[in-house]
């Protein structure tokens, strides 16, 4: 459904979603901080801590993108562009790996 022709009823439904998402985001923020403190006390490895932190952040990010930014109701053309962007984003994130992993030099 396009936002172009939304009725007042539709908008009201949306508003309820927004508030639910808002509450969820606050809860997840609490979870992130809590888990991080717990991890610090328990002495988790960096990998575990990173994975958990990024997992929660991804959930929060998806909520914002899907509901606040209405990505969930967009057309496939935009997904194509964002997928391309996501792919190149991953390539960018490979830079640290390739800088460190396969070099004959010693740091």
């Amino acid at each position, binding site marked *: 459904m396009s936002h172009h022709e939304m009725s007042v009823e539709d908008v009201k439904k949306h508003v309820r979603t927004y508030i639910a998402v808002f509450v969820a985001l606050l809860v997840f923020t609490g979870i992130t901080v809590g888990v991080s403190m717990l991890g610090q006390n328990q002495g988790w490895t960096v990998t575990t801590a990173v994975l958990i932190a990024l997992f929660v952040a991804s959930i929060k990010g998806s909520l914002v993108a899907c509901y606040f930014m209405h990505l969930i109701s967009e057309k496939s053309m935009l997904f194509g562009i964002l997928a391309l962007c996501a792919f190149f984003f991953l390539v960018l994130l490979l830079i640290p790996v390739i800088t460190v992993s396969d*070099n*004959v*030099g*010693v*740091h």
Partner: protein
Amino acid sequence: MNLLLASTHYGAWTPPLYSQHGGSIDKLIDVVHVFMFVIFIPWAIFFVYCLMNFRARPGHKATYTPIKAKVSKYAEVGVAIFEAFLLLGMSMPVWADYKNNPPAPDQRLEMRVVAEQFQWNFHYSGPDGKFGATRSSLISASNPIGLAEDDPASKDDIVRVNECHLPVDKPIYLRLTSKDVIHSFDIPTMRVKQDVIPGMEIPIWFTIDKNATTDSIRPQMKTVVPMDKAEWYKVRHLVAAVDHKVKDEVVLAKGADLGADLTKGKELLEQLRKKGLTELTLEPRNPLEIVCAQLCGNSHFKMKAQVMTHTAEDFAKWLTESSKKPEMQTDF
């Protein structure tokens, strides 16, 4: 081409080659270029044919339907296959060999190369085979690599600036580091090139041809230059290979160079011309050079070192003699 490129026997294509691994690199370069011509020449012939045959002229009309050119598909597939061959058959094995198989520690000459603006510092471990400790706080103009005198291992170490002595026919293992910016260690005649990056130590290795001592290479590069082609820029690194005489008077003694700078060089050449000399017999003063291939500042072009290659015996002699006098050479 010879006139434009070579004033000495330096090759009109790749430079002369004095290392053992370089042959495979040159071979790849040659094969790629043959391949390029094999593609380009037919392509160019077809191109010129189309340009001439299909020019607009009265009575000639373009055809709407495209030609069914299977040839293009075959050509594209052929190109792809040949590229795969170049990659898998030639480039990768050479590279893997160049990177993956360092010579065993007991068989190689290991040395450290410390690059800085704008000089190459060479650190030999000396007869004991142990490198003395280095500390950056000790670095000064007279101690360019910060060698710690209090370390017993450093007693017989040799440090040379812009002067690199190497044995022939023995694997050489270099550990490259930089003090300041990125440099690139390049010996064109050995087909060796490696960026030198601060914060990293990068090893490279190569073996110099058995017969490639500096003293034997120099006469091989001997050349005769007609006087009217002798421009200072082109002969500035060359010295007289024989005594040049005009009526029994030596006008240019063996080993003499042709002027240290442009003004002197021009004058000298003019004098020789006036005295009636018609040609010069020349050879390079230092046929082997290490140069910096990565822009490293305003005197980047001056950053070079002389390579002196010796036979095993001569090198051993040089090593023992030099290690007796541990003071640094600071003639730079």
